[in-house]
């Protein structure tokens, strides 16, 4: 297991390095000169050259990338803007802040949103899927299947605004979505995120219901489940200790990918509910052509997915002894 983790983490770092290089090259190869934008109306060639130097874009792209990479480990001085401590993932000239600080600032919101929603959709989705599988072909199964089809065809900005209108504005059952750090006020943190969690979960729940049901139905028809019944084990025992064990693998896989994606920014959800997370940061950076910030957000998204992939593989090996990690 340890060998596996070491190998995978090394692999992940290599992947991130490649992603950063490609993203860097893509962004800085675009014909938009940040120095020009920063120089303003009365721009003299001298000024421009100085700004270029300060921004560190007076070199070729490979050299710029090298400086950027060095900054990650050693920190970097952006003369005229400020010093960026290690790990320095670049400097946002548009907002005059280091990229890393901004992302760390925004990350708690996104993490709260992602993990909170994950708890809701896992419990609801897997629970409904289990019920549907137990009552195959009966009313409950058909109801869960139709509901999940409906759920998966909904869109967040649609459900989000309707929910806000009814539950917040009309009925007053829920608080207006807002962001309060957990350490400041746990109750406000919870009530401010409750609606985004539920809305985000609706979309995912449907997917998990369908997947749990189909996985369980498949497992329940496996020979080893029949054997377990032939040994005299009870239906419930067989369901949870045998069939569910087998159904877990694919669910864990999809869950890992979903979680990674969410941490890279639930863009629409954060926009809809005006939550200051990574997703909104990404949108804002695009608007402002804030390339260093975008690079940082892209790397975070990629890193999250790579990280959860490793976790998924490790969990898979714990579930299924046939998978040997080496």
């Amino acid at each position, binding site marked *: 297991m340890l060998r596996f983790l070491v190998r995978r983490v090394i692999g992940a770092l290599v992947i991130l390095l490649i992603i950063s290089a490609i993203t860097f090259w893509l962004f800085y190869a675009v014909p938009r000169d940040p120095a020009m934008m920063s120089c303003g109306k009365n721009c003299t060639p001298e000024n421009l050259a100085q700004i270029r130097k300060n921004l560190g874009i007076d070199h070729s792209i490979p050299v710029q990338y090298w400086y950027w990479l060095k900054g990650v480990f050693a920190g970097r001085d952006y003369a005229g803007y400020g010093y960026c401590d290690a790990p320095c993932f670049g400097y946002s000239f548009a907002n005059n802040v280091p990229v890393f600080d901004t992302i760390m600032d925004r990350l708690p919101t996104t993490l709260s949103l992602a993990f909170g929603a994950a708890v809701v959709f896992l419990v609801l989705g897997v629970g409904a899927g289990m019920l549907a599988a137990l009552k*195959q*072909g009966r009313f409950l199964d058909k109801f869960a299947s139709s509901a999940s089809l409906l759920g998966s065809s909904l869109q967040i900005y649609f459900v989000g605004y309707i929910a806000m209108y009814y539950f917040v504005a009309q009925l007053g059952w829920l608080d207006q979505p807002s962001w309060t750090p957990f350490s400041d006020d746990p109750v406000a943190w919870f009530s401010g995120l409750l609606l985004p969690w539920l809305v985000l979960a609706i979309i995912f729940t449907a997917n998990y219901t369908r997947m749990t049901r189909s996985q369980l139905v498949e497992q329940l028809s*496996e*020979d*080893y489940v*029949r*054997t*377990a*019944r*032939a*040994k*005299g*084990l*009870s*239906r419930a025992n067989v369901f949870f200790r*045998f069939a569910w*064990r*087998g159904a877990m693998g694919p669910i864990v896989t999809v869950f890992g990918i979903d979680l990674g994606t969410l941490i890279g920014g639930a863009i629409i959800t954060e926009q809809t509910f005006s939550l200051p997370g990574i997703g909104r940061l990404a949108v804002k950076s695009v608007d402002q052509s804030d390339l260093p910030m975008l690079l940082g957000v892209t790397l975070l998204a990629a890193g999250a997915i790579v990280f959860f992939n490793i976790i998924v593989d490790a969990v898979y090996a714990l*579930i*299924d*002894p*046939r998978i040997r990690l080496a």
Partner: protein
Amino acid sequence: MTSTDQQPFLSVRDLKVHFSTEDGIVKAVDGLSFDLLKGKTLGIVGESGSGKSVTNLAILGLHDRDRTAIEGEILLDDKELLTASEKQLERLRGNKMSMIFQDALASLSPYHTIGKQISETYRKHTGASKSQSRARAIEMLRRVGIPQPEVRVDDYPHQFSGGMRQRAMIAMALVCDPELLIADEPTTALDVTVQAQIMDLLKDLQQEFGTSIVFITHDLGVIADIADDVLVMYGGRCVERGTKREVLRSPQHPYTLGLLSSMPNLEHPVDVPLNPIPGSPPSLLNPPTGCRFHPRCTFAEKVEGGLCSKEQPPLEVTNGRGSACHLTADQRAEFFTDLAGSAAN
């Protein structure tokens, strides 16, 4: 029914198992009766779709209850199983009656160790402690010939070879000394040399524990090795039954005869083509009228009045011997001799 004064241990009476599917009702088993005495082996022979496996799932109550209509009687030691509650059946399964399956790799849980799978059966039925059950699992593994059982007990099924998995499966089925063992094609997926080992093992264990065995197979050669009595199934019905010697030496039903003469054996003259049964096994959704074998039967036209396609021949059993065929004894004697001659050696 049988003339023996011994009470049958397992008795199946007029069993009907019908599934409803999207395409209609599948009559998987359609009126099957048999008896099994204590310590004896009944071989059930049939091809895919003959209803042989369904019958045995029904005995254990493992059929899909929502979609299955079941009729008849299944008496195990005078206890009616078809009307038994799920809880009662759970107490019997793995305890008084056990089952082993064809594909041991698929039939053992990949997520639990061999030892765990054996010991949990034992714990469930005897209430033994964890360490007692583990000791029992090791003992059973040793009994079925697994080398180093105290080490292998912690292995997972995928770490066993095909033959060892089937041994482990047998150990699991026999851990509570069941009185009835249902073996559904337990050697079909195995190589011949391993198959021979497993058959020997089953015979040894039967002698030791006096288990009654229902052995399901498509292979008449395996039947010849292990069974006392034989029941031949075709299209959900029994077409012939009798002792192994009676059925294999002097088959009464054209289907049994066809099976015997279509099988190549090590003595068959090589220049003579095999003697296959024409056509394919029947669809149970839409079984042929009358005798279900008549579309493939070479003798059907010899029966007067096209009776074979009109009327289902009754299974007349005397002293445990019988067949369901419209041919008269004289016709049989006339038609079967040359074929049976080449088949039964």
